[in-house]
């Protein structure tokens, strides 16, 4: 694990990279990393996240800046710019049921090839997927999802990289922290090693590659 300033962290991410980004309507999104990505003017990113927040907020800033070529998300309803770019053919959007999206990411992080879910059977979500029956019940095979980078926000990090999340800012963060080749974290507070109780660490330090220093 290395501790680096936000400029260097964002510079690690090349144009065209796939990013899993934590947050739910912007809550728990690593806002400082997003701002720096916008400043550095990345292009053609793939964003995997629950939603695209709203204009001016979290992932919404990447969308507004035209930096996203593809979005994989469960909900884009609160960001009209995402819908406009999608309908205008400027950005590809894959809509995935929220429970399926988080399980696909979890599978990617946990070394599973996929999971069988009943969600989406018989709907348009089934298109192009294998249907598998187990004990007479039908499921869709939903395959694992991984990314080049995970951009994670935590409430507390220690200087080794152990992470603790606050309340509903947890959401996708601990799950994406396992499913990317390189994991970059911003934390609201960075504390000495040993002061987060072992039972309260949600993401083990061993999963983290870079911790962004606070200003």
């Amino acid at each position: 694990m290395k501790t680096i300033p936000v400029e260097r962290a964002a510079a690690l991410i090349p144009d065209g990279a796939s990013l899993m980004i934590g947050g739910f309507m912007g809550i728990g999104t690593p806002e400082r990393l997003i701002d720096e990505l916008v400043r550095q003017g990345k292009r053609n990113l793939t964003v995997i996240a629950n939603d695209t927040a709203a204009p001016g907020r979290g992932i919404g800033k990447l969308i507004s800046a035209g930096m996203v070529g593809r979005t994989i998300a469960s909900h884009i309803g609160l960001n009209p710019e995402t819908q406009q770019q999608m309908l205008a053919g400027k950005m590809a959007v894959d809509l995935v049921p929220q429970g399926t999206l988080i399980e696909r990411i979890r599978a990617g992080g946990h070394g599973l090839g996929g999971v069988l879910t009943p969600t989406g059977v018989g709907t348009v979500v089934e298109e192009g997927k294998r249907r598998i029956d187990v004990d007479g019940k039908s499921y869709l095979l939903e395959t694992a999802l991984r990314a080049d980078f995970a951009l994670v926000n935590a409430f507390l990090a220690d200087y080794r990289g152990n992470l603790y999340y606050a309340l509903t800012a947890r959401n996708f963060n601990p799950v994406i922290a396992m499913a990317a080749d390189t994991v970059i974290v911003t934390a609201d507070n960075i504390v000495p090693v040993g002061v987060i109780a072992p039972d309260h660490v949600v993401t083990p330090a061993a999963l983290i590659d870079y911790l962004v220093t606070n200003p």
Partner: protein
Amino acid sequence: MEAQTIIAKRIARELQSGMLVNLGIGIPTLVASYVPDGIDVYFQSENGLIGTGPIPEDGTMHPTLTDAGGRPVSALPGACTFDSAMSFGLIRGGHVDMTVLGGLQVDAQGRLANWMIPGKMVPGMGGAMDLVTGAKRVIVAMQHTAKGKPKILDQCTLPLTSVRPVDLVVTELAVIGFPEGQATLLEKAPGVSIEDIVNATEARLAVSGTIPDMPI
């Protein structure tokens, strides 16, 4: 009484103590305002919270405690938080006793369409597909018609949310269930005639015996 108030008050009477309940956005959210006295339920917010409380007073909010729309909420004593995988484990795994969702269309068997209008409105399904597939009991809260056109149809013309039929549709006119896969009139709003309801419904409605008034 406003249509949405009738709907929310009627659905609130379906709540039982100890239930874990997930409310969608829109009319369903209002159900939380009409929980009957003496009934103690857990509300789940799918962004990772059980024990959602009312909007906190000014000066007592925190940006890390919000509902699924990103709006500040409070947490009741005994609340707990978790990640999205757990949140949807609760939903898909049948641990949510009841969910209340909005609807665009419901078909004669009770199958719901509520997540997109192709080419026009594509917000995404969010958690709706998992909720309809996984919750123990699914209740649709919606107005009976949209711009005068029925929303309870023979067949949905919009993409389905799930092939699993919902348990109950509650509108400002009626309560409709789907015993044996057949849309059936269970209750009518006070002052509304059965004919009014049948005329506002495209799907064939089974009507038998005396239809009681909705308790609201």
